[in-house]
């Protein structure tokens, strides 16, 4: 397996694991409160829809000329990756609320109870909430599977990494019988943001006609540099947040 393929598998696995943890919370909430069978039906329908999206769009993307594919995919991955990284840096610095699976679970349970009692048969509420949850969380993963996979001509490997992540999360969920609140979601999102941004800038520049010093080996420098820059931004924001209140208090003291 080449370095780029390892990066592909790791990015897809981490992104998919994070999204699967969030989807699991929603499915657990409606399943335990209302109807497991309807929730599972929603999960199945959403999984089929996501597989259809990958199967339909995958071959069309791989049919594009390599340079066009790289510039389009690189640009999209970079925009997408910078979004992930921005949110992860803000969460790391305490400027954005962290995702709390227990809080989400309790909110979903409350909403499921408020929707009235489930009948004995098919429960439309459970189906819809599970379907929407899995589809929305899965769309980001489908996007990453498609863009990474098409660019490396390895949609199969990307899909396998996504499937492996889903299986790991399901196994952990079955073992815990509760939302996976202790999964370090922000750290994983941070890592995904770093990888997507690094591969995005690498492929985007190549597609636009640039040549990286060292070829593919440049990724070994790009990934740590992006990681260091993101960690430095978290550190700078934390410092700023610590000094800003002190400076404000000092101004008040001086003016008083």
């Amino acid at each position, binding site marked *: 397996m080449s370095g780029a393929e390892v990066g592909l598998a790791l990015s897809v696995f981490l992104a998919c694991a994070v999204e699967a943890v969030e989807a699991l919370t929603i499915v657990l909430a409606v399943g335990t409160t209302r109807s497991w069978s309807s929730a599972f039906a929603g999960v199945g329908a959403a999984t089929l829809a996501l597989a259809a999206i990958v199967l339909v769009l995958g071959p069309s993307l791989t049919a594009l000329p390599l340079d066009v594919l790289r*510039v389009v995919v*690189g*640009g*999209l991955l*970079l*925009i*997408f990756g*910078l*979004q992930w*990284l*921005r949110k992860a*840096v*803000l969460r790391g*610095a*305490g*400027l*954005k*609320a962290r995702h709390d699976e227990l809080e989400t679970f309790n909110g979903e349970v409350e909403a499921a109870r408020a929707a009235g009692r489930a009948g004995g048969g098919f429960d439309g509420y459970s189906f819809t909430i599970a379907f929407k949850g899995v589809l929305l969380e899965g*769309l*980001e993963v489908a*996007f990453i599977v498609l863009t990474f996979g098409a660019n490396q001509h390895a949609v199969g490997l990307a899909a396998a990494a996504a499937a492996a992540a889903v299986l790991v999360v399901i196994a952990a969920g079955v073992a815990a019988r509760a939302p996976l609140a202790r999964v370090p979601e922000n750290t994983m999102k941070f890592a995904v943001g770093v990888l997507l*941004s690094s591969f*995005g*800038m*690498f492929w*985007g*520049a190549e*597609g*636009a*006609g*640039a*040549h*990286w*010093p060292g070829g593919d080996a*440049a990724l070994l420098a*790009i990934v740590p*540099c*992006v990681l260091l*820059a*993101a960690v430095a*931004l978290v550190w700078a*924001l934390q410092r*700023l*947040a610590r000094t*800003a209140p002190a400076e404000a208090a000092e101004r008040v003291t001086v003016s008083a």
Partner: protein
Amino acid sequence: MSTVVALLRGVWDFIVGDDWRTAVGVVVALGLTALLARAGASAWWVMPVAALGLLALSILRAARDASRRGRGAAR
């Protein structure tokens, strides 16, 4: 018509997200890379400089907004 608009808005939100300036910056950086590469100049450095600069600017904007709204409130 409203379905098409809603769909386009959904795609925009999905890909571009909260900060459209970052997306525009990435497109401009790709264009600059292509121009430099066509002119035969070294162009590989444009994307890393642009990406890290855009990330820092986007975070600073969000941090400024968060400090206006109170901690933990960045979008």
